């Protein structure tokens, strides 16, 4: 199982509605993973103002609240508590903010970073989590959400998708990779470090390494199809766009809908049923091992 929804808006008039549209989509994949959910939003200026970097963390209960721990480092800090997640934004570079967060909050898990991206993770009913994240209030140009049917590791906030391991990058995965341990060893040999034993994180790290070398989403995902064995429907987002790919057998569901105003992807049609103009959308299922990518 696992449920995926993603929405890439082409029409800026829809940006103020991103959160409400995404929340309605998330509500339709609750049964596919009813005990945890992760969300990523691109362009939510409430929480990552223009000219700011944002780092999303799972701070845990040990230590001081993130806002207090970082108050001495930055004057114009914007800190948002959203359930288990805290989003910290400051008018500095992503690397500087990341370094400060790691120094001030050594036990916190960084779950997202960038100049455009905010990530939320938590355990509980996905509808309750959407309220905790104030998803309905989110504005922006792109977002995704994932409900997880945990198969290989515990139901924890850290185990939620998306895996966001590069700047403004996210990967959500329905399926399981068979040869992730081999690829993990190869990446570790190249100097990549990991946060978890999760197979999906290996996919995210693999892509991040490729994107860091200058490849685009399309090329990096083709390389992933060559390297990875197993079952997957992946939705990958970056500061530039949105991409979908499935394995050669394609038993994990995916449906794409496109109009002039938006591109949407979901595990099931019903998650798309409420989108504006769905009745005139081009609706299709992605073919095996073909990369579908859209850029801004």
């Amino acid at each position: 199982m696992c449920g995926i929804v993603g929405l890439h808006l082409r029409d800026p008039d829809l940006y103020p509605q991103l959160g409400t549209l995404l929340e309605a989509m998330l509500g339709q994949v609750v049964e596919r993973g009813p005990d945890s959910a992760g969300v990523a939003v691109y362009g939510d200026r409430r929480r990552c103002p223009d000219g700011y970097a944002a780092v999303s963390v799972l701070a845990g209960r040990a230590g001081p609240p993130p806002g207090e721990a970082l108050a001495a480092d930055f004057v114009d800090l914007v800190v948002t508590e959203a359930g288990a997640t805290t989003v910290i934004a400051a008018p500095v570079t992503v690397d500087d903010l990341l370094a400060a967060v790691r120094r001030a909050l050594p036990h916190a898990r960084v779950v997202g970073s960038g100049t455009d991206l905010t990530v939320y993770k938590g355990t509980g009913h996905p509808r309750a989590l959407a309220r905790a994240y104030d998803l309905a209030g989110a504005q922006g140009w792109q977002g995704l959400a994932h409900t997880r049917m945990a198969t290989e590791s515990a139901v924890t906030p850290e185990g939620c998708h998306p895996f966001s391991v590069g700047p403004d990058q996210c990967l959500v995965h329905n399926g399981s990779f068979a040869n992730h341990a081999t690829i993990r060893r190869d990446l570790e040999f190249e100097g990549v470090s990991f946060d978890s034993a999760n197979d999906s994180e290996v996919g995210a790290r693999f892509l991040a390494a490729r994107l860091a070398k200058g490849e685009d989403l399309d090329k990096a995902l083709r390389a992933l199809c060559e390297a990875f064995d197993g079952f997957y429907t992946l939705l990958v987002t970056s500061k530039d766009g949105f991409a979908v790919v499935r394995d050669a057998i394609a038993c994990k569901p995916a449906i794409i809908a496109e109009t002039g105003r938006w591109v949407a992807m979901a595990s099931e049609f019903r998650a798309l049923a409420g989108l504006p103009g769905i009745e005139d959308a081009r609706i299709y299922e992605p073919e095996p091992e073909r990369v579908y990518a859209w850029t801004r």
Partner: protein
Amino acid sequence: MDALTRKTVTVDLSVTSVRELNRQLHAPAARAYEVLHPQGAHALAAGLKDPVTVDIRGHAGYYAAGMNDGGTVTVHGSAGTGVAENMMSGTVRVTGDASQSAGATGHGGLLVIEGSASMRCGISMKGIDIVVGGDIGPMSAFMAQAGRLVVCGEAGDGLGDSIYEARLYIRGKARSLGADCVEKPMRDEHGRELAALLTAAGLGHDPAEFRRYGSARTLYHFTAHNEY
């Protein structure tokens, strides 16, 4: 069934649960039902065992009309994974497209998809007839055992892999054939059965435009007398 009302019963899924809908359909009080606001819900009109007519006004989710045994179900929209899976008898029609595994394991009845069907259409079909107005996706009719699959458009990769005895009629190109699936001559009896299926589906194509595919029957038995 004689005591059933002739009036069509309308069930609005914006106020009624799918479970309640199916409970009514499993002990029908009417000959005809209309389902409003399906919104892609799963298992709509699954498990019918009476000759009732069900019109679903909108898109259906997984397993719509699954296990149908005698019902006439029309999805006025598109259908999700496994529409009419394991159908025994009756008719299921989808006016839009169907997702994966349409008509999977079906034993009988007629499934008509006016649009296109995705991957694995007719997987392990066991006697069902499937007529698709558009294209079908890769790996369709995998291990098909009996029945007829008619495709008015094109077929994706790996058509009829490991097929037993089903007959596949494809009007457009088959991108590639699966293991043990071969093209076979269209004889008169095939033209006749194809014409009857197209008529039943309400499609006007000329049977002469189709090619027939089926099993080469080389995978029926393990090769005996291996010598090492």
